[in-house]
């Protein structure tokens, strides 16, 4: 548990900044809803008439006039991108930062096995992501209450659940990548997160690119689909969990025999 505690303490500032930023932006969005609700008819037409751009964000199938329709697009983008970036960044630096900051020599000359180091670091990563999602969900529910709307429990839980899974998947994959890196890795994390996001936009635009949803975790986070079907796409999620597991297995495989220079 020593390494878990150390990681949580060490990553506290980054964690708080990301969590606060995402929660703050979500709250602003929610507070804006009553304002825009009146203008929604005009807005809905506007958003509905932008062709494939509309489709990319799923706005052709969502009703902006309802809180949950608005929430799925606006808040979905904030939580989706913000959460994805945080999870990727935290994951991709988790193992490699020790070598980048030259602290690996300190850590690994203590009587701890590499397996334990990787395991505790992974645990710290998961705890951070879980805590972030719980805090954000709490603020989101609070804000919905404050603007006097009823909480659409099922949809909110499904949306947030999907984004939680997305973050876990990206974190797992990036954790795997982390074991192979020695130097700065932030670029890899941000790049991967952004790429996945855009892959989903492409997949939304044309049916020919639908298969991309099996690659990007944003595929199962599509607000329009979740609201329409009232459940998550198990196929996409199963594939996503597989990617995460491969990432984590690769991390263990590599890290246990990695040379520390």
């Amino acid at each position, binding site marked *: 548990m020593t390494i878990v505690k150390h990681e949580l303490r060490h990553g506290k500032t980054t964690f708080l900044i990301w969590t606060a930023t995402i929660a703050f932006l979500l709250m602003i969005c929610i507070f804006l809803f009553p304002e825009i609700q009146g203008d929604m008819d005009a807005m809905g037409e506007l958003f509905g008439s932008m062709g494939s751009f509309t489709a990319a964000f799923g706005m052709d199938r969502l009703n902006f006039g309802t809180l949950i329709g608005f929430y799925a697009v606006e808040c979905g983008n904030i939580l989706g991108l913000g959460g994805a970036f945080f999870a990727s960044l935290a994951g991709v630096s988790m193992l490699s930062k020790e070598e980048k*900051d030259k602290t690996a*020599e*300190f850590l690994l*000359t*203590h*009587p701890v096995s590499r397996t334990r180091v990787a395991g505790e670091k992974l645990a710290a990563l998961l705890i951070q992501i879980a805590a972030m999602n719980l805090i954000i969900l709490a603020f989101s529910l609070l804000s919905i209450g404050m603007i006097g709307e009823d909480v659409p429990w099922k949809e909110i839980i499904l949306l947030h659940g999907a984004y939680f899974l997305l973050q876990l998947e990206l974190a797992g994959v990036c954790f795997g990548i982390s074991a192979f890196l020695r130097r700065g890795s932030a670029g890899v994390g941000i790049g991967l997160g952004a790429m996945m996001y855009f892959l989903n936009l492409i997949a939304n635009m044309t049916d020919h690119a639908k298969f991309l949803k099996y690659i990007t975790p944003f595929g199962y986070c599509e607000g329009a689909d979740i609201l329409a079907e009232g459940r998550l796409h198990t196929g996409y999620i199963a594939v996503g969990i597989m990617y995460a597991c491969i990432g984590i297995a690769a991390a263990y495989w590599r890290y246990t025999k990695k040379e*520390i220079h």
Partner: protein
Amino acid sequence: MNAIQIDDLTKYYGKTRGIEHIDLTVPQGDFFGFIGPNGAGKSTTIRTLLGLIRQNEGRAQIFGMDTIKDREKILARVGYLPSEVSFYPGMRVRELLKLSASLRRRDCRKISGLLCERLQLDTTRKVEELSFGNRRKTAIICALQHEPDLLILDEPTSGLDPLMQREFFEILKERNKEGTTIFLSSHILSEIQHNCTQAAMIRNGTIIARGSMAELSGTGAKRINVRGSVDLGALIGVRDLHSTPENVDFLYTGDMNDLLQTLSAGDIQDITVTEPDLDEVFLHYYGQGSGRI
């Protein structure tokens, strides 16, 4: 049982040589010197012993345990002072010492307190604000606070002022008396000569000499640089002589009294006496690294 037993250890980094066919034995309780110029393979040897890197051939044992298979068991009994010290930024010295102790599942507060006092280290400071010397002191305490049976020190004195160096070696000698085996790697010859009982010399990745300090005492050469004019005449033990009308520079291995008498006859403005570079020692005593004691 030997504290360290290295058999035919070879490590290549890709195609670059690290160490080649190293054999080395350090008996328990020894104060052992491991000396060689930079890039000779000292750190590679140490990193292999600690399981940070894996050898290509041969094997190494510490207290009879294999450095690959029994890594954690070995590390529990070893204290290591790296040549380059880096800590987690944002932590205070106190927190770092505690982290190190809890990674070992030990409570070392009493001993670390004593050591901090002796080395005059302020534990409330943040590690990134520490001077090079203070960072090194922190690392020294991390290596010593759990009272290891074997201390592996890689260039331990760089950055320490002379007073602290003395205190540090004082602590090491006390520990050694209590039974701790000390493996001191250094490129400073005098450091090894003054503290160690046994030593091995490494150069270009191979051990070129080993034995007791007495056996290796042939290395007591001094680099003498004299500004002024002096006639060295028949002085015995002069090597590598470079002389200009204003300056005489040579490596000296002869009798000190003879040297002083010869010098006193000259007209001298300034004189410096330094330890020769290790490379010079190797060059003059062991040819191109082929000789063995």
